[in-house]
């Protein structure tokens, strides 16, 4: 099922192509991933797992969880959520562990393409875009890489307007902010953008850092820079419950990707787990896409996200069941029902309170964790700070980690808002340029201004929590600069 009308978004689809699922032709559109095209055709089961042969479908939709592996043109283990369709593609579900094709020629050994810059920014979401813009304005040559086909990160899926102050894009929809920032980046000649390019590793080479990039899963690129800014965002959390791996159980971000990026309806009836901002916003977006939201369950005794987001979906008839949890998903090869129960004060389900929801989608919006893999792999010191969403890199107030020359910004530095991500990106971009001796001293004032804005944004009950978490990290590096 594809979405055609939407109150906010317009879907521009590529040329029609034909792909084959188990030999059956399916119409798809150029520019969409295999999994989205299959989903639009009603196909939910993408593979059967390695050891227990359990049916599996899409889960993260951004190439991270390995739940969508399929055999494409005879090649196994293809991540269909990030591999785009091509005319005539043959696609089969994978059953258990894969067999390699028996015949092949050895690949030719070739030198990788090399790219050099002062600063390499990894991640083109709000933090990375602002980092690139500011580092460039401060005089640095910047390379910006992102794994998605478009810039903007999670902004491109956000149909709601942002909070904060108007100079921080308050009152502007996420999708629009993405366009504004992208234009700013494209305008700058000293920023080079590489899309569909994943950073898969960081190696130290003397004073330089080598970022190993993989473009379209086809081409190896060696990015070298004297400083790196890691703004790789966050990853959805998973929770344990019975049958939590059934096709039809998605991370909230996956649903946003399907629905808002590719215009594919995730299902007809949805149960959302988690009443934080992500769950609440998702509920509203589903209603905007014409999908019924049966309920939102939340284990805490109150709504965790902004009240105004809750009020928006309540007045459209969506119940929010606080102090409730999901017990199990039911269904043969895909979600058919969800069983929910009330929790007592010790977080235990109360027998007899079970309630069954007839749904075909269960959306998990149980929180995000920073995507710190690159930082961790590069040797940055990592700490668990609950207030920041889990494990984060220890960093100073200029966003530099414990590995000299590696900076961090946005959700990677701690789960917060797009607004703070942009401010942190600005701080990181400028401080990287300053530390490399590229920017003039006067740029310090810009850092201080962004820090004041951050402080103001974080002065409310929501931000105070985050500020407390950041204090813990700063204490470790012994204060400021």
């Amino acid at each position, binding site marked *: 099922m594809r979405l055609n009308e939407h109150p906010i978004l317009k879907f521009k689809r590529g040329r029609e192509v034909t792909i084959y699922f188990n030999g059956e032709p399916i119409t798809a559109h150029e520019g969409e991933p295999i999994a989205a095209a299959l989903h639009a055709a009603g196909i939910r089961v993408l593979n059967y797992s*390695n050891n227990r042969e359990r049916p599996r479908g899409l889960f993260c939709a951004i190439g991270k969880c390995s739940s969508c592996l399929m055999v494409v043109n005879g*090649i*196994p*283990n293809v991540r269909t959520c990030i591999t785009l369709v091509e005319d005539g593609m043959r696609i089969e579900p994978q059953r*258990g*562990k*894969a*067999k*390699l*094709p*028996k*015949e*092949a*020629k*050895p*690949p030719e*050994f070739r030198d990788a393409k090399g790219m050099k810059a002062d600063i390499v920014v990894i991640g083109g979401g709000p933090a990375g875009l602002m980092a690139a813009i500011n580092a460039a304005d401060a005089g640095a040559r910047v390379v910006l890489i992102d794994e998605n086909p478009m810039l903007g990160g999670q902004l491109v899926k956000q149909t709601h307007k942002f909070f904060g102050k108007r100079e921080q894009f308050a009152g502007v929809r996420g999708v629009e902010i993405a366009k504004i920032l992208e234009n700013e980046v494209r305008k700058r000649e000293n920023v080079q953008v590489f899309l569909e390019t994943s950073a898969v590793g960081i*190696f*130290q*080479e003397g004073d330089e850092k*080598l970022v*190993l990039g993989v473009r379209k899963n086809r081409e190896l690129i060696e990015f070298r820079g004297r400083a790196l800014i890691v703004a790789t965002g966050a990853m959805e959390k998973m929770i344990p419950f019975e049958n939590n791996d059934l096709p039809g159980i998605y991370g909230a971000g996956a649903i946003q990707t399907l629905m808002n990026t590719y215009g594919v309806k995730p299902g007809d009836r949805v149960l959302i787990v988690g009443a934080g901002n992500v769950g609440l916003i998702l509920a509203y977006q589903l209603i905007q896409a014409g999908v019924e939201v049966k309920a939102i369950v939340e284990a805490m005794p109150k709504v965790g996200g902004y009240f105004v987001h809750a009020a928006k979906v309540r007045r459209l008839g969506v119940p929010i069941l606080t102090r409730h949890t999901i017990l199990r998903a039911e269904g043969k090869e895909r979600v058919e029902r969800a069983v929910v129960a009330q929790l007592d004060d010790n977080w235990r389900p109360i027998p007899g309170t079970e309630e069954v929801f007839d749904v075909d989608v269960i959306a998990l919006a149980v929180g995000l964790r920073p995507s710190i893999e690159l930082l961790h792999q590069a*040797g940055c010191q990592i700490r668990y700070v609950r207030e920041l969403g889990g494990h984060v890199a220890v960093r100073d107030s200029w966003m530099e980690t414990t590995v000299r020359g590696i900076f961090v910004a946005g959700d990677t530095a701690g789960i917060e808002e797009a607004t703070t991500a942009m401010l942190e990106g600005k701080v990181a971009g400028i401080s990287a340029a300053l530390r490399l001796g590229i920017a003039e001293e006067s740029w310090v004032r810009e850092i201080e201004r962004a820090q004041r804005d951050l402080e103001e944004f974080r002065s409310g009950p929501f931000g105070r929590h985050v500020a407390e978490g950041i204090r813990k990290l700063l204490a470790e590096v012994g204060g400021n600069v």
Partner: protein
Amino acid sequence: MSKVAIIGGGIIGVATAYELAKLGEDVVLFEKNYFGSGSTFRCATGIRAQFTDEANIRLMKHSVERWEKLEGELGFDINFKQTGYLFLATSEEEVEGFKANIALQNKFGVPTRLIDMDEAREIVPILNTEPFLAGAWNPKDGKANPFKTLFAYLFRAKELGVDAREHTEVVGFEREGDTITAVRFRSNGKVESVKVDAVLNAANAWAPLINEMAGLKRDLVPITAYKHQLVKTEPLEPGQAEPLVCPPGWDDAYIIQDGEDGGIICGAGIEHRARSLDDYEPTYDFLRGVLRYATMIAPPLRHAHIVRQWAGFYAKTPDSNPAIGKLLDNFYIAAGFSGHGFMMAPAVAQAVAELISKGHSKVPLDWEWYDPHRFERGELRTSAFQIG
């Protein structure tokens, strides 16, 4: 019953703890990090008797026989499989060398034979037969899961009363003359000591530091840590590259399919001297180099995805043979395995336990060959062939 302290919770230390407990000794085992954290958990899983000298061939033949019985004895699935080692020759000279090695191995009962590339391809369906002239094939060689093997030994050792302590660092000894009387160790920031009758230094790359603590010269047994790296693919169906396949002429490059999850492990002798004993940083040259060789050995591997690269140490002695034996009256060493500790462990653990407990062993271990004092005498063995 005597009190024996073992330093090092890798496969050698843990297996010896088990063997000593079986002989009725009272064992305390110290590991400063987590069990297996040194070289054991970083190894390539291979087990072979295809060596090129009598001592190693005989020791490994015995070890393989122990491996065959280990699962039953320890009561734990360790994924031991005799899927063979296949060495591949890229030149006529190498074929001749293979023939000589095979003759030596056959002499001591190791059933290696020379095979042609058709047979090789039957054994390894994704093999590139083109560059190779012949193979040296021993179907009795094999592999096991290092994680499970270590824990199989450890669980049984604990059942037999071994006091196994991880995150516990040995910080010194008390010594009277040539006898160690006590071991000092630190755990949770607190230093304690325990009276002992014997001590085994099984710290491999860290062994020189332990020798120094015992009042010996650090380079009495010269062991240097060399960083060896591996790259592994995501899980694949078993049966595609089960044996360890290695053309020694290509920088000792090899591939072997993991016996548990089916991922293909790719290694090569592209080694770097470790900058320090926590230098586990993988290097980019290795990543590209090893995969180049791997795809030349098995071209269909080009379509697999790699999921990780890691490094571990070959704790190397000058002749790449381990140092096994007595250093002081009651201070023993089994270290410097130069990449062979995992495969040798069942035999070495048994031999060393018997030596400590009874003063002699029935294991066919050539004590003179592995004598830890040979280096101070400037007496080196022929270099042991170092693969996985």
